[in-house]
C-alpha cells in the first residue's frame, strides 16, 4: 500500500514534468505572400509629394516610413530605399498646438537633415514633392523643374529635385532616367495632381496645365514606361475641391451661422460669396482673422478663394486629365487605381457617418477625418495605408497576386502635438505664412 502510493506520486510527477515541458514553439511565421506575375525585386514608385510621404507640410522620416510605396514594399517584403529626412524634416512641419475649444497650429521651427544622401543607387522612392507631369522627363534639379521655368519672372526653385535626384558634376538624370537606371521589375506612377493643385491652392484656375499639353506629356511618360516592359500601375487625380484645405474654413463659418463672405473672384470682381457654392482655403483663415471678408471695401483676396466658376473649371479639368490617364493605362495595359472615385466615395458619406474600415472611420474632414494630415492636402499615415490598399487590390487582380491588405488600425497617428503647455486659444488658427513653403 505504501509503495503503491509512493509509486502513484512518482508517476504523477513524471507525467506532470512531461506535460509541463511540452513544446509550445510549433507556431510558424507566415510565409511571404504570392505576388503572382508581378515581381517586386526592384520596385520603383514615381510621383510627387504624396509618393514622397509628405505630411503636415514637410518631409520627415517618421512620415516617410508610411509612404504608400514603402507600405506596399513592406507587404511584399522587398527593399525600398527612400531619401529620408530626419524629424522634424524639411522645415515648416505643422503641429497641433491646441485642439479645444478650437484647433490652433504651431510651426516647428526646427529642421532635420537628409540621412540617406549617400545611398549608392537611385532611390526606389522617386516621389519629388512639387513635381508636375512635365518634370518626369525633363527636370533634373531645382533650376530645371517646371516651377522654376514656368514663370521666369518669379521662378520657384524646388530643392526637392536636388534632394531626390542628387545630380552632381553636371549630370542631368530625371525621374525617368533614375527609374530606367534601376532596371525596375515593378513600377507605380502617380503624377498629375500638381498640374491642377498648385493652381487651386493659390485660389485661381488659370495656372492649370493646358489639356493638350498634359495629354502629350502624360502619354510621353507612358510611352517611356512601356519600354521597360514590366508591370506598371498608375493612379489618377483626386478632385482637389474635396480636400480639407478647401472645405474646412467655409464649413466652420457655416457652423457659426455665417452663410456668405465678401471675396475677390477669379475675374477680379468683388462679390458676396455663398459659402455653399464657393470655397475658402486654409490660407484664408489669417485674412478672416484680420477682419477681411466682411465688407466690399475689405474683401478676401483672390488667392484664398475658389469661386464657383473656378470650382467648375477645376472639376472639368480634373475629369479631362483623368480621362487621359485612364485611356493611357488601358492602351498600355497598365494597372489603374481610381483614386478619384475612391475619395469621392468617402466624401459622399463624410457628413453621414463616414466610411468605415478596420474600425476606423474615414472622412474628408480636417483632423478628425483621419485621412489627411494637418496641411489639409496630404494624406496622413492612415491615408497612405488606405491608398496602399487600393494599389494592392489592383495588383492582386491584375497580376493574380495575393498580397495581404494593410490593417488601417495598425498604423500609428501622424499629427504631432507641439511641445510645451497649451496656451490660450490663438486666433488665427493658422498663422500667416503657414502654407507658403508647402510644395505640392
Amino acid at each position, binding site marked *: 500500500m505504501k509503495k503503491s502510493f509512493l509509486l502513484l506520486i512518482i508517476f504523477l510527477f513524471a507525467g506532470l514534468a512531461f*506535460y509541463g515541458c511540452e513544446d509550445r514553439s510549433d507556431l*510558424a511565421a507566415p510565409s511571404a505572400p504570392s505576388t503572382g506575375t508581378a515581381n517586386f525585386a526592384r520596385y520603383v514608385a514615381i510621383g510627387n509629394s504624396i509618393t514622397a510621404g509628405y505630411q503636415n507640410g514637410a518631409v520627415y522620416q517618421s512620415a516617410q516610413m508610411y509612404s504608400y510605396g514603402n507600405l506596399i514594399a513592406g507587404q511584399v517584403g522587398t527593399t525600398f530605399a527612400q531619401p529620408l529626412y530626419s524629424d522634424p524634416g524639411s522645415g515648416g512641419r505643422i503641429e497641433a498646438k491646441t485642439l479645444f475649444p478650437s484647433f490652433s497650429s504651431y510651426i516647428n521651427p526646427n529642421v532635420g537633415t537628409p540621412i540617406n544622401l549617400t545611398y549608392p543607387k537611385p532611390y526606389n522612392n522617386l516621389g519629388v514633392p512639387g513635381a508636375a507631369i512635365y518634370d518626369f522627363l525633363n527636370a533634373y534639379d531645382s533650376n530645371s523643374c517646371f516651377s522654376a521655368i514656368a514663370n521666369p519672372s518669379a521662378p520657384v526653385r524646388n530643392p526637392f529635385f536636388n534632394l531626390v535626384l542628387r545630380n552632381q558634376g553636371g549630370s542631368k538624370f530625371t525621374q525617368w532616367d533614375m527609374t530606367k537606371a534601376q532596371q525596375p521589375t515593378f513600377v507605380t506612377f502617380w503624377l498629375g495632381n500638381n498640374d491642377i493643385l498648385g493652381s487651386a491652392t493659390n485660389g485661381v484656375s488659370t495656372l492649370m496645365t493646358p489639356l493638350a499639353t498634359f495629354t502629350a506629356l502624360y502619354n510621353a511618360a507612358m510611352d517611356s514606361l512601356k519600354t521597360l516592359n514590366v508591370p506598371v500601375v498608375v493612379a489618377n487625380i483626386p478632385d482637389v475641391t474635396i480636400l480639407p484645405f478647401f472645405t474646412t474654413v467655409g464649413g466652420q463659418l457655416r457652423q457659426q451661422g455665417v452663410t456668405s463672405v465678401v471675396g475677390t473672384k477669379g475675374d477680379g470682381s468683388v462679390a458676396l460669396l455663398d459659402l455653399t457654392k464657393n470655397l475658402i482655403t486654409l490660407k484664408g483663415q489669417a485674412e478672416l482673422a484680420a477682419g477681411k471678408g466682411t465688407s466690399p471695401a475689405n474683401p478676401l483676396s483672390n488667392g484664398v478663394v475658389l469661386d464657383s466658376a473656378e470650382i467648375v473649371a477645376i472639376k472639368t479639368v480634373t475629369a479631362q486629365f483623368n480621362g487621359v490617364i485612364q485611356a493611357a493605362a488601358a492602351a498600355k495595359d497598365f494597372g489603374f487605381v481610381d483614386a478619384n472615385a475612391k475619395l469621392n466615395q468617402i466624401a459622399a458619406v463624410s457628413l453621414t457617418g463616414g466610411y468605415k474600415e478596420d*474600425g476606423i472611420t474615414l472622412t474628408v474632414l480636417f483632423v478628425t477625418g483621419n485621412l489627411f494630415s494637418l496641411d489639409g492636402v496630404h494624406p496622413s499615415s492612415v491615408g497612405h495605408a488606405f491608398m496602399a490598399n487600393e494599389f494592392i487590390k489592383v495588383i492582386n487582380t491584375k497580376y493574380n497576386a495575393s498580397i495581404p491588405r494593410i490593417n488601417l488600425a495598425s498604423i500609428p497617428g501622424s499629427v504631432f502635438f507641439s511641445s510645451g503647455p497649451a496656451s490660450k486659444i490663438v486666433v488665427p488658427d493658422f498663422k500667416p505664412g503657414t502654407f507658403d513653403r508647402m510644395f505640392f
Partner: protein
Amino acid sequence: MKRLYTILMTAVMLMSVPAFGGGFQLNEHGARAMAMGGAFAGYARDLSAIYFNIAGITYLPGVHMQVGTTLITPAASFRGPSPSVTETKMKSQLFYPSHAYFTYQINDMFTAGFGFNNPFGLGTEWDEGWVGQFITLKSDLKVFSLNPVLGVKLSDKLRLGVGLQYNIATVELSRALNFAPTFNGTGKIDLKGDEKGAIGFAGGLLYQATKEISLGLQYRSEVNYKFKGTATTTGPSQLSANLLAGDIEATFTSPQQFTFGVAVTPSSKLLLTADFQYIMWSSYDSLKIDFLASDTTISSPRLYEDTYIVRLGAEYSYSDNLALRAGLLFDRNPVKDDHLDPLLPDANRIGISAGLGYRISDAMSLDLSYLFLRFSERTITKTEISYSGNSGMLPFTGTYNSTANLFSFSLNYKF
C-alpha cells in the same frame, strides 16, 4: 476557490476605454486541502473548514489556531497578434495569499471561529510598450476577508456551520492610451480604488452518512463590491479636455457558489475525497466604471459563464506522525473566447498536487504542499478585444499559454 491568484482577475478594460476590475477567486486557503486538489468540502476537519465547509469546525475540540501562506508564481505568455507569432511574457511576480484561523469549542454543540484569508486576488503585469499595452499594463486586486463563523453539531451525524464575510479590497488597473490614428502620441490611465466593507455570508452542512462516507455541502454568497477611487490620466495637454479622470466608482459582484463534497475512508489509513464546485460567474456580465466628474459611464461586456471545478484528493497516513497527500483538479474557465484578454489570460486548467502533513508534537503540526497548474493552450481567432487605440480597432488575436506553481504551508497549534 477558484481562480488562481494571478492570472486571474478580472478584467476589464474595454478597449477604447478604461475599465475597472473585478476579482477572482483563490482556492488555496490551507496547505492540507491544497495538497488534496482542494477536494475538502466533504471532510473539512481542519481549520481551513472556515473556508471550505464551516460545519467542519465542530470536529475541532478545544482551541485551535492555524497560520499559513501560499506562494504563487504564475507565468503567462502571449503570441500575436495574429499573424505575428512574436511572444511576450508576462512579468514574473510572486503572490502570497495568506490565512489565519482560530476556533473555540464553546460546548459540545457550538463551536465559534474566526478566519482571515484572501478569497479573491489577481495580478498581471506586462512590460511598458508591449503590443497589448493599450489593453492592459497592470492589474492588481487584493481582497482581505474577515470571517466570524459558528458551527453547530445538530446530531452525531449532522453538523451545520454559518458565517459572515466582511471584505476589504483594493484594486489598481492601468493601461496605455493611444491617440491614433489621427494623433501621434500616447498616454496612460491608472485607476485606483478601494472597498472598505462588502458583506457576504456562507453556510455549510456535513453529514456522516455511514462510518466510511461523509457528505458535505457548502454555499458562499455573492458579494457586491463598490469600489471608490481616482483615475489618473496622462496624455498630450492638447487633449486634456477630453481625457477621463478624477473620481470614479465601479461595482463588481463576486459569484455565488455551491460545493458538493464526498469523503470516503476505506481504511483507517486512507482518506479519499471528491468535490464538485459550481461557480455562478454569470453574475459578472459587464464591468461599469462611472467617472463622476464628467458624468460618464463606461461599460465593458464580460459575459462570463457559469462554470465548475472537479477535484479529487487522497491522504494516506504513512505513520502516526506523517501523512502523504495528492490530488487532481480540472477547472473549467468562465471566460468566453471572444472576451478573453491579457488582463486575465484564463483557460481551462489541470492541476496536480502533492504534499505532506507532519506532527511535530501533540500540540503542533505542519502541512506542506505543492500544486502545479497547467492552463490549456488557448488560441483566439475571433475576438471583441481590440488593441490599437481610441478609434482604431485591431482584433487582439493570438495564443495564450500559462502555468502556475504554488507552494503552501500551514502551521497548526491546538490547546
